[in-house]
């Protein structure tokens, strides 16, 4: 194992808020940890083997996430189309803000080419915010709703 490399990594992460670096060489797997202060709410993300350089570059900006994004699950539009909150005009909406939803429950329709795509929630939780108006066009990947997972 190249010690120089190890020292270099330690030097690089010192003073940053990177808590942990793990990587793999042909000789094995190395994990470097540092104490960065009070543990905040950390989501248990499975970190695969991380490329050191990338980790250093990318980890700093990711900390500037908005609070909402972190706390809530975002339902995004899987396609370009028109957003509908109810199965047909005049029918009650699938969900309202504040409603409890379960995984697999239909929360809205995105229509494209006269195909009514029923979009299901992929988590159990509560609808915190609906971001798009009924009948509005939506883009691929556009955020539709925030769900607070439970």
């Amino acid at each position, binding site marked *: 194992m190249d010690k120089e490399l190890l020292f270099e990594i330690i030097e690089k992460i010192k003073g940053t808020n990177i808590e942990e670096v793990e990587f793999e060489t042909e000789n094995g797997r190395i994990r470097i940890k540092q104490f960065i202060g009070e543990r905040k709410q950390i989501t248990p993300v499975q970190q695969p083997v991380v490329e050191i350089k990338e980790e250093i570059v990318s980890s700093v900006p990711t900390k500037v996430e908005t609070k909402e994004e972190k706390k809530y699950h975002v339902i995004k539009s899987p396609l370009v189309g*028109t957003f509908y909150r109810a199965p047909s005009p005049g029918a009650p909406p699938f969900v309202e803000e504040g409603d409890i939803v379960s995984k697999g429950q239909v929360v809205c329709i995105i229509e494209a080419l006269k*195909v009514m*795509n029923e979009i*299901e929630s992929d988590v159990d939780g509560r609808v915190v915010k609906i971001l798009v108006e009924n009948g509005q066009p939506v883009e*691929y990947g556009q955020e539709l709703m925030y769900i607070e997972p439970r």
Partner: protein
Amino acid sequence: MIDSVDKKILELIDKRVVSGEKLAEELGITRTAVWKRVKKLRNLGYNIESRGNGYILKSRTELLLENEVRPFFKTSFIGKRYVFFKEIDSTNTYARKSVFEDGTVVLAQKQSSGRGRRGRKWVSSGKGLYFSIVLKPSIPVSEVLKFSLIFPLSILDALSRSGISSKIKWPNDIYINGKKVSGILIESDTEGEITNRAVVGIGINVNDSLEDIKEIEDIATSLHIETGKYFDRKLLLSEILFQIEQRYISFLTGKKDEILKDLEKNMLWIGEDVVLTDGNSKTEGKLIGINNYGGIRLKTENGILDIFSGDLSLRKVDDV
């Protein structure tokens, strides 16, 4: 509805008189049971005449019962399960409520509340074809648009085999001489990025007279009205299912972009000035064609626009 004993009766009395006694003997049932079954068959629309103490089948039923349509099917999995209703609210609603295997066809002689896009009504006179197909493609949702084009193209091909030339009004209405003859409503379930199930509802005006579609005669027509002929709905259904299965298999095995070319070749109003209405928004422009995803491409005052939903109509001269 019709079991193997009924089928046997229909077979035996087809074009020849067979006595009730003989039927009872052949089928191993009582004469009363024979009589009851004949009564049931008559109620289902079979024209069975009594001759002396025997029966003869003069004509078959108009109802698209499974035993009537099955012999014409040329498909391998579409229609393998076939569910028939004399009358139901909507075949799509029914097909979506239950768990059906891939390829199931739900057909109704009449729909009491046939549905179109966004709560619109589909008029089902009883002389057309109204059915839904359950498909489980498991494709990325990004491919659903191309997938949805399989259906209008298949109907167009089936009609063309009956000598009828038609066009597709984007995205999936079938038009003959400027009026709608068939409509499609697809309802799909998308979890994450994968579409697991699509219920494809198809309505076609076949033998409807002008009187039958009076309330919509300005915008709708039927195959009969356009040609003056009557069509065998069993043959038409079987041909449509066959065309759909062919295109669907070829889609799943990778030939996805052919669909876009085929649509563009058979599309209504290319090169003309059109209006696209979506809710309260209206976009005017020249219809150039379709984009790589199946959306429509318009040349507008603000440049070229790709649009994925809405109702297309021809811009009238007095709109200009």
